[in-house]
């Protein structure tokens, strides 16, 4: 469903193809191939449709995938082959694991037990919600964490009978939302955009004739998890300052949590099975090479069905399989820009000379953060990462570093309801308004941007992650 008016939907539905046609039919500029021109035309259409969503995101990706061979950017076999990449299968696994955690109730059980232990004061309860939302992203994709936590947090708000503009109500909800946003940068399992980014990076290397080792599960987390942790601390501090405690009696909330914990009963066979499968998957991802991540995720998913933890019908109800189309098409479109030389031509024409590498790093991170406030994270990565890698290369930054910077920066979306599902959910409650998030969220995002750039520049090289060529 588009979040824009019908008028804007019509304009973008027609405007996207018109602009695509205009670019395609224009005289081919010097230095740009006909195939590159076609790839740019397709990307323009996808950009407009991803931004304005006159059609669902997966449909835009399908359009892009179909138009790449139709307009001559890539041969059909090449375009369709890009669809079947490791990231897609990893994402399938990620979402199936999330579905199993939700369906069996294991994630809700762990959350209730955790919150019950940390409800001695308002500050402790709010921080517990923040920490729990963040930590759950270690193994469950952040959107699913938000979906799981929202009813729990709202039940606490109800139990405390908090009035509409209660500071504690807003802090609880924003702790959940910001916790999942910060947690989305923890590991490759925390968000699908990370694996999208790594796949685009791999395609960039292949298509530009560069050799480098792919990025593994632990290696990715080594760079992203510390930033995620610092983001968590910044969020916690900001929420404590903006929404100080109100001196509430938490007994009703504790009683409600007690009720919910009591209603859980003993752990079911399905929950034990989920523990075993998830533990096995995490160990395997840690020790397997990068090229095996998708296979491990798929095998874990198969295990959940084979062990009867969840049925296929249940899995279908927990996952929107449009995610496969969205990511498959997005990777094909992003890779086409590199493969046809379109990115190289674009950067030749837009990049000023002698720009310091640090400035490029900051500019890329800032652009991704800004774009992700208004468009889906995956669309932002697809649009900006190929350009960022080429830009970075010219300025002396490794494409490998950009493959981290872009998805991490896309996780700094704290301000607007259009930025990420978690924020949209708390806005949907009617308790949180723009006044609560725009200013504090912008400040938090700016601080996090600074942390990211400083970490990339100073810390990552110490961890063995090369940033500068």
């Amino acid at each position, binding site marked *: 469903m588009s979040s824009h008016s019908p008028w804007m939907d019509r304009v973008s539905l027609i405007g996207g193809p018109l602009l695509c046609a205009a670019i395609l039919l224009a005289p081919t500029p010097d230095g740009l191939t006909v195939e590159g021109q076609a790839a740019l035309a397709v990307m323009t259409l996808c950009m407009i449709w991803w931004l304005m969503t006159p059609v669902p995101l997966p449909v835009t990706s399908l359009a892009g995938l179909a138009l790449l061979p139709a307009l001559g950017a890539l041969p059909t076999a090449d375009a369709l082959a890009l669809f079947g990449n490791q990231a897609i299968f990893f994402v399938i696994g990620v979402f199936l694991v999330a579905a199993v955690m939700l*369906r069996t109730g294991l994630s809700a059980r762990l959350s209730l037990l955790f919150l019950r232990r940390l409800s001695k004061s308002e500050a402790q309860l709010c921080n517990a919600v923040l920490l729990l939302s963040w930590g759950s992203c270690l193994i469950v994709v952040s959107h699913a964490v938000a979906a799981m936590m929202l009813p729990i947090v709202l039940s606490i708000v109800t139990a405390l009978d908090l009035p509409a503009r209660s500071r504690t109500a807003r802090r609880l909800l924003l702790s959940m939302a910001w916790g999942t946003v910060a947690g989305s940068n923890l590991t490759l399992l925390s968000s699908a955009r990370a694996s999208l980014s790594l796949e685009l990076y791999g395609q960039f290397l292949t298509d530009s004739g560069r050799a480098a080792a792919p990025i593994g599960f632990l290696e990715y987390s080594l760079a992203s998890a510390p930033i995620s942790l610092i983001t968590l601390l910044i969020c916690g501090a900001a929420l404590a300052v903006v929404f100080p405690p109100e001196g509430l009696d938490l007994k009703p909330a504790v009683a409600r949590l007690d009720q919910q914990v009591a209603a859980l009963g003993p752990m079911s066979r399905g929950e034990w099975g989920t523990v075993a499968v998830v533990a096995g998957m995490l160990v395997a991802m840690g020790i397997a090479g990068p090229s095996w991540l998708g296979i491990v995720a798929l095998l874990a998913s198969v295990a959940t069905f084979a062990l009867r933890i969840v049925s296929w019908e249940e899995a279908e109800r927990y996952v*929107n399989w449009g995610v496969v189309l969205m990511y498959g098409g997005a990777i094909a479109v992003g890779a086409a820009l590199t493969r046809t030389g379109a990115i190289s031509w674009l950067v030749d024409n837009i990049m000023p000379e002698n720009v310091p590498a640090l400035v490029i790093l900051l500019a890329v991170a800032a652009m991704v953060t800004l774009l992700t406030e208004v468009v889906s994270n995956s669309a932002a990565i697809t649009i900006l990462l190929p350009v960022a890698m080429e830009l970075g290369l010219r300025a002396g930054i490794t494409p490998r570093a950009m493959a981290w910077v872009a998805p991490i920066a896309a996780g700094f979306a704290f301000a607007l309801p259009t930025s990420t*599902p978690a924020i*949209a959910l708390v806005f949907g409650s009617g*308790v949180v308004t723009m006044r609560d998030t725009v200013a504090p969220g912008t400040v938090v995002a700016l601080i996090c941007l600074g942390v990211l750039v400083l970490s990339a520049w100073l810390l990552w090289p110490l961890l063995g992650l090369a940033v500068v060529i």
Partner: protein
Amino acid sequence: MSESNPTHVSPEQATVLLALATSRYSAGLVRRTIDEALLLAATGAAVRIEVLYVDEDAGVRRAGATLKDDGFLGADPQESILEALAESHRRLARDRIGQVQELAAPHGIPVVVEEAVGEFSPLLEARAASGRYDVILLTRVQRPFIARLLLGSEDDEIARLARGEGEAKVVITEPD
């Protein structure tokens, strides 16, 4: 806060319309409503307060759609989220309407409540143009300055309708 000059007071029956919504509420507005009702009562009129509460479910639907389209979660998680959000809206409505009733009761002012689901402006505009009200009170919704500059203020349109058709006094306050 903005007001229009009061020009019409029924000597027998006076009605104050308090228009609230999910995104439009202010404790100060509720207190102002009681004050306006008491002012009318002081003229000898039999005053009553009508509360129009609009549950703006667009935010709930948008949240559900975002969870599906951006979050790629399926029907089951969406269903539980939509129910949780709808219950949050209902709780907000009960809480806010309750506050109006609580403040009006000591003064013996009857409160009639109408709850509706949908968009605030069209629902209020229809009532504003009816000419039934002596005073209409509402809060602004927060919109970016550019949007108000380019698209105009919906609240100013309501005030114009109320003044033009019904000669009501219109009070528009800032939200909490």
